[in-house]
């Protein structure tokens, strides 16, 4: 990294970190959102893919709809605001259910069980209602897409990692001849593995930030 870039990062660290939903402010790793479907349903690459389609089609449209409804109906109490997000999410689910059923059949819905409809009340999808100010639809779209990307990155990474460790396969194709960590296929293993991934990710972020500040200090 050039010294100019390091200086820029050091000066705007807070804003840049907050805006970066992929790496520095990932919704799962830093904010702890969307853990239940990730830990229970994303036990392999294929199931992570099904969930990805659902999150892709639910998160951003819900956030945009919520932003529009807040502008139309005004800033009311939390009791009503939560419905601005929960109802659009539940409506999105109708389309997602039909799409998943059409594309992958009933078995995909059975594999995901209650964790697909559960997305409707996941804080990842609806927690925006707690924000004090309404955002514009454009900002909601942009932020929604970034958050979706950040979530899908961890969701698919964890799905593949768990499949590899528990079964020694990737998307069903054999890769390893040994099953390194069979517990990874269970929710308990999912929690433990996610905790370890979280720690490694956060450790890398700390090192990245430390390096930037050290580079700027050395240059001075």
């Amino acid at each position, binding site marked *: 990294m050039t010294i100019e870039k390091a200086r820029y990062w050091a000066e705007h660290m807070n804003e840049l970190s907050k805006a970066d939903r992929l790496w520095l402010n990932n919704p799962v790793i830093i904010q*702890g959102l969307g853990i239940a479907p990730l*830990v229970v349903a994303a036990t392999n690459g294929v199931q992570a893919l099904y969930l990805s389609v659902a999150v892709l089609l639910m998160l951003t449209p819900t956030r945009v709809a919520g932003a529009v409804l807040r502008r139309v109906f005004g800033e009311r109490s939390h009791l009503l605001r939560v419905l601005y997000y929960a109802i659009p999410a*539940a409506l999105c689910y109708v389309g997602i*259910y039909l799409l998943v059923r059409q594309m992958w059949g009933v078995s995909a819905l059975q594999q995901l069980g209650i964790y697909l409809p559960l997305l409707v*009340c996941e804080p990842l999808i609806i927690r925006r209602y707690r924000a004090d100010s309404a955002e514009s639809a454009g900002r909601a779209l942009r932020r929604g897409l970034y958050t979706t990307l950040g979530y899908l990155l961890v969701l698919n990474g964890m799905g593949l990692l768990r499949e590899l460790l528990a079964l020694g396969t990737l998307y069903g194709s054999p890769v390893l001849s040994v099953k390194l960590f069979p517990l990874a296929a269970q929710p308990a293993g999912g929690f433990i593995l996610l905790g370890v991934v979280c720690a490694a990710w956060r450790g890398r972020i700390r090192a990245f930030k430390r390096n930037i500040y050290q580079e700027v200090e050395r240059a001075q």
Partner: protein
Amino acid sequence: MSIVLTALGEFVLYAVLATFAQNAVFGRSLGVTRLVLLVDDAATDSLGFCVLLTLVQLISTPLCWGLNHLTMGMTYRAALRPLAYVVITALVVAAVWALARSLRAATRLGPTPERMAELLPLAAFNSCVLGTQLVVTVQAMTFAETMGFALGSGMGYYLAVMLVTEGQRRLRSRRIPASFRGLPITLVYIGILALAIYGFTGHTLLV
């Protein structure tokens, strides 16, 4: 008489099952995101949150159960289920809100309306409540089982909040590597507790 006793037995059995062996958080990871946020948030009263969650669950889950029985045989009802359950939850929230306000007006007991307006949606619109409503539907429970499961699920959630809060207090040790402090060690801790719960329910490892 025997019908009443059987129903009572089912109620107690499912309440105990949902509190311990099929704990919402450790067994099914229901409401785990909210739990992780809740134990970090000193401003939110955990007991008040769990009381409201249990109350909403106790009233809304039998209504969802009833709706599911009424719509038996309807095509694509699974697609509309979350929408219907969200609407039922919203109606129950309105009823609890009105009840709490009138109780406060009469006795000056309970949280202020502002506090209630903040806490109630948090407690009602989370994956523990929706998850419990979906579990009783998918598992085709009887009415007594549904009521027991709804109560036990709320109590189990409070148990999980207590365990994780206490765990977090002890896990603030300097011996824990800096990268593991906070969310990562909490997740590992929940994973280990979930593993202990497997001792009751049993889980098959793919070995």
